């Protein structure tokens, strides 16, 4: 039996959420509504623990300086340490990788004309660890191996939504050709609307965000044609992170002629967490 994608998870990855968890502030009035939105998700993770998580995120000037900026980088190492982003490393478990599956995916998608960078040494920042904390709480070890997949959304040009969606399709094909009966979840993280810089900092667009969630569920192929400028103008300069959700969505059965529309197991939206709108979806394959 071959590996298969069982579900996709989408979530913002705000650093302040990580700080709130690490400092025990999750019950405070400011934070309580955010974490309440993930209670159901944690139960779902316990009930549906995968064998591997393929976790799409972006590095925030942590592992990658300006010396080298890969558009797409796949982590093929045996483990990845939580990074010191300037406040000291987060007190979370180290991330155990899945070198065999990661290398297999790299091999397959490079042959499908995606020009990945293979990474065998990398610390992982809040972009990867905050989603794990939101979905898994504070365990002594993460529940399964994780393949980090870093997308450049820091220096323009970032990859187009369309390119991301097609990459998701290629990743699905790669996973389906791995000869081991693994249940794999694919996670897309970052967003939703936010802008961290300049006089326009603090921009939030609830209408855009909810329309994005609707269309991500119903018609992601059309959504993938949204140009960068629409994200920047409508969802803030850092809202561009949402293109990463299209990688996860492109890996689902329905957009690969392999199944019906996914079941929306959970949907959550809240403003604000620090500077950012928090959005979250769990989609199960059918």
């Amino acid at each position, binding site marked *: 039996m071959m590996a298969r994608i069982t579900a996709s998870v989408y979530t913002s990855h705000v*650093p*302040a959420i990580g*700080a709130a968890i690490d400092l025990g502030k999750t019950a405070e009035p*400011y934070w309580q509504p955010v974490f309440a939105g993930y209670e159901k998700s944690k139960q779902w993770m316990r009930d549906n623990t995968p064998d591997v998580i393929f976790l799409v995120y972006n590095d*925030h*000037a*942590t592992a990658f*300086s*300006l*010396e080298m900026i890969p558009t797409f980088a796949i982590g093929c190492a045996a483990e990845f340490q939580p*990074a*010191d*982003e*300037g*406040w*000291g490393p987060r007190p979370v478990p180290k991330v155990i990788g899945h070198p065999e599956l990661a290398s297999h995916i790299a091999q397959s998608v490079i042959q499908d004309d995606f020009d990945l960078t293979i990474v065998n040494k990398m610390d992982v920042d809040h972009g990867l660890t905050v989603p794990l904390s939101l979905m898994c709480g504070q365990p002594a070890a993460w529940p399964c191996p994780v393949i980090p997949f870093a997308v450049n959304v*820091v*220096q*323009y*040009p970032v990859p187009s939504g369309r390119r991301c969606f097609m990459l998701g399709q290629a990743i699905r094909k790669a996973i389906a050709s791995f000869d081991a009966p693994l249940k794999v979840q694919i996670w897309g993280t970052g967003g939703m*609307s936010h*802008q*961290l*810089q*300049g*006089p*326009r*900092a*603090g*921009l*939030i*667009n*609830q209408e*855009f965000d909810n329309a994005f969630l609707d269309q991500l569920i119903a018609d992601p192929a059309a959504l993938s044609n949204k140009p*960068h*400028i629409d994200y*920047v*103008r*409508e969802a803030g*300069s*850092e809202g561009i992170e949402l293109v990463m959700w299209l990688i996860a969505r492109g890996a689902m059965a329905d957009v690969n002629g392999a199944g019906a529309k996914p079941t929306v197991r959970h949907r959550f939206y809240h*403003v*604000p967490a*620090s*500077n950012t*709108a928090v959005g979250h979806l769990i989609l199960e394959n059918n």
Partner: protein
Amino acid sequence: MNMALDKPYKDVPGTTIFDAEQSRKGYWLNQFCMSLMKAENRARFKADERAYLDEWPMTEEQKQAVLARDLNRCIALGGNIYFLAKIGATDGKSFQQMAGSMTGMTEEEYRNMMIHGGRSPDGNRYTREWEDR
């Protein structure tokens, strides 16, 4: 030399897109920021900011902008917020304090704006909307 590629993001107000041109301009400013990810370098920077900055081939304008903690100026000079955040971390500032400092609002005003749903996109989509004010 001009680039003939489209830069449609030039007409978004109060926003600087970190593209190749900005990245070239801000290379050493941002690499200086990266160095603050090491505790040892943070300590050396805090002990004598000017001396630490002088170890980097940054422009005098960039150094002054860092010393003044003028993040808008840093961004105009090629800085990127994810790099500049390392300065904030060194100062013990949160991302919200950093973002707020660029808006002309007080910390409390900015925090309250966020609690009440953030800055509306209405009137904030095109530079001409700001010029009309």
